[in-house]
């Protein structure tokens, strides 16, 4: 028997029917699918971008692999420059975690490569300065910071680090003073500057200037916390600055510009901030030379002065 399949209408009905059946089957199959969901419970990490060392190490390693791969293929010289810099910073972050000197050396190598063509990017030299400081190469760090300031005279972090390094590592208070003053000219709310200026004043026996600077430091630190963070100065460094300011003020108010109330206030503030028991005991011992202590409590009274 010969069946004539050239009947156009029959074919149309057949294909229409199977298409409709298929559409229905697929529609029914997909009916329970939801296009929106609910978020999974949070892992609970909130606040500034910090991770555990292990996770950070993994993330840094993955990033480094990707960056090194890009180094093989990236041809644009400007991008390559930034790539070298990012790899260097990656190694530096690893060094931060592990304190493995080899990472610091690799970081330096890549960062030096990134500045080989003298790019006018202050950030590059700033980071290089940080690395040199960490490596104990203070003269190179100084040059790097100064180079950063050449390209951007208002680069606060470079100026800040340069000033700190000049005072604490290069032991040049006059130059440090100049840098701090420069920094405060740009931004009066720059933390730590007034603290170190106060310390310089104390060394130079300018006690009233020192007190003024320490008081200013406390005001600045309090303001700095309230505003959105502009500079990479950690909360712990601000706290340390406040703690030192309180202590030095309590010393100055106890010995030089005697004011028992303020001395007490600042000493209590210092003790509340100092968590290290050894340092607390040393501070109390020191204060005991100037104050009569109540038995059992770290309070003090003026010794008849």
């Amino acid at each position, binding site marked *: 028997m010969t069946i004539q399949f050239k009947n156009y209408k029959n074919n149309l009905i057949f294909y229409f029917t199977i298409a409709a059946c298929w559409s229905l089957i697929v*529609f029914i199959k*997909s009916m329970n699918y939801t296009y929106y*969901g609910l978020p999974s419970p949070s892992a609970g990490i909130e606040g500034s971008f910090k991770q555990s060392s292990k996770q950070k190490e993994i993330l840094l390693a993955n990033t480094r*692999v990707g960056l090194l791969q890009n180094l093989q293929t990236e041809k644009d010289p400007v991008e390559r420059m930034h790539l070298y810099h990012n790899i260097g910073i990656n190694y530096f972050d690893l060094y931060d975690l592990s304190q493995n000197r080899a990472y610091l050396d690799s970081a330096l190598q890549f960062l030096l490569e990134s500045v080989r063509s003298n790019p006018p990017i202050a950030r590059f030299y700033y980071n290089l300065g940080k690395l040199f400081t960490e490596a104990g190469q203070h003269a190179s760090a100084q040059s790097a910071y100064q180079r950063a300031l050449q390209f951007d005279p208002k680069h606060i972090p470079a100026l800040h680090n340069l000033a700190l390094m000049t005072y604490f590592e290069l032991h040049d208070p006059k130059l440090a003073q100049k840098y701090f003053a420069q920094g405060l000219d740009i931004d009066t709310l720059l933390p730590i500057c007034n603290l170190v200026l106060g310390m310089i004043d104390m060394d130079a026996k300018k006690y009233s200037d020192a007190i003024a600077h320490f008081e200013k430091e406390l005001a600045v630190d309090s303001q700095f916390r309230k505003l959105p*963070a502009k500079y990479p100065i950690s909360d712990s460094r601000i706290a340390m600055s406040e703690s030192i300011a309180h202590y030095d003020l309590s010393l100055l108010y106890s010995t030089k510009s005697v004011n028992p109330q303020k001395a007490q206030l600042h000493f209590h503030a210092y003790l509340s901030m100092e968590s290290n028991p050894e340092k607390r005991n040393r501070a109390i011992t020191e204060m005991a030379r100037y104050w009569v202590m109540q038995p059992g409590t770290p309070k003090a009274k003026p010794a008849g002065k």
Partner: protein
Amino acid sequence: MSPNKKYKTKPIIPTISTTPSPGPHKFKISEQLCVKLVIVLQLLFLAIEFYPDLSTNGDDAVYFILGKSLAHGHGYTNLHLRGEPVETQFPIVFPGFLALSGFVSDFPLLPKIAMGLISIFLLLLIYKLIRLWSEAAALPVLIVMASFNAFAEYSTLLLSEVPFLFATIAAIFLYEKYKNTNNRLMFIITVIVSILPVHTRTIGIAFCVTFIAICLFEKKYSYTIAHIVLLVVTLGCAQLLSHSTTPYLSQIFLHNSYDPEKGTLGMLEIFHRIFTNISIYLRLTIPQSLTGFDLVSSAGKTIGIFFTLFVIGGWIRNFALRSRIFSIYGLCYFCVLSLWFTIGISIRFLVPFLPFAAYFLILGVDGIAGLFFRQGNLLQRYFVPIAVKTSEFRFKPVAIWVTIALLSATNISFRIGHIATQTAQSSDWKNFYSCADWVRLHTPQNAIVVSRKPELFYLRSNRKGLIYPFSHDVEKVVSGISNGGASYVIMDNFFWTSTTSRYLYPAIMANPQRFNIVYSLRNPDTFVLEFK
């Protein structure tokens, strides 16, 4: 009736005599049943493989969003981007088609069903088209086309490959069927359909060149003129409406078509790119698209090369046949493909070429078989016209059907294996979507979110967004985020890309004071960061 008497053009090579047909209807009955069986099986497979949501590709999300934009009266704009800029890259036909379903539903299920049906209709159209030239080749092409894994995969994705192929085949079919008639209506319809490919995918320009070339060759000047006029008018309108500053053709000569800022190629670079691309397509992509497998072993690569050689052989042979429009299109198509950005090469670009590749493969196998089993000199044996009737095959059917069976078997086994190993969403995507859900519930409606896939993020979170700049300059990345008005950033940990760790993470670490974690997930670590 000799096939030559039906048409004006004579074959270049003299035909050889064929054996008498055993009977006109015997094969036709089986063939119609076979066609229906193939279609039903294909529908069955598609039903099993069907996934109701958008893929993680991203382009389907963009098309879907553009369709939504048209349907809701926002014009042809990227709703997922801040400022809803007008779309300048994707041609309008496919989003226009998606807009039809956008009037009914805001979810992708309906258009995906429509795409599946279009793919089935496309198979039938391919079958009908090839039957115009050779009844013998139509069923083998249909079978292998339906079995192709690449074709099946794209049959239900909201991507323009299948609609583009549909427009191309429809245009060729209408032209071949009605070019010798005086039907004015069909003339108009054919000309209109002939410009649809270029407005569906940019590579459709290859089809326009093909159409013009074949019309000129066959002296169909009315078609040529009408096509050119309509093409110029529609392209001009599209350029004006989209305010695009990068004309279609110039995109090909960019270093990176997705990043015009990288500049244009020099002459040497163009040649290098052409050579590299052709090499990749011939050695890897064509074999992979035909067999469905990544042919990594030496044996696999060798088999793959053989398939490619058959395709090339068939392509060359086809220039001497009535179906030469396929060969001209193949030439134009690969000319454009060879100029495209090398890193973008994938099977996806070959999906619109699959039926042509299948047809060339059959021609190639038939031609090679003819070298052994026909009479005459080498050229006569190879360039003989393809058998019109199945009955005209002598020993050749074995070679062709063995090839069809092999290809279909590899593709179907790949598809079955793929269905069996289909897993739920991977954890990196689960976390990404979880972040989108969190953002949807905990952030203001007008929040802008930076993420690796802003289009997918938008559809899940209803928040506009942007992608971070792909630059190693951390300041550039942070400025890009800041200038985009973003208030949240998604730090993902995708397995399939490392751009976030390469570009975004260094920028975050360089400016930690500006980023604050507000939602976090583990395995892998994924964060929603508030940006200040």
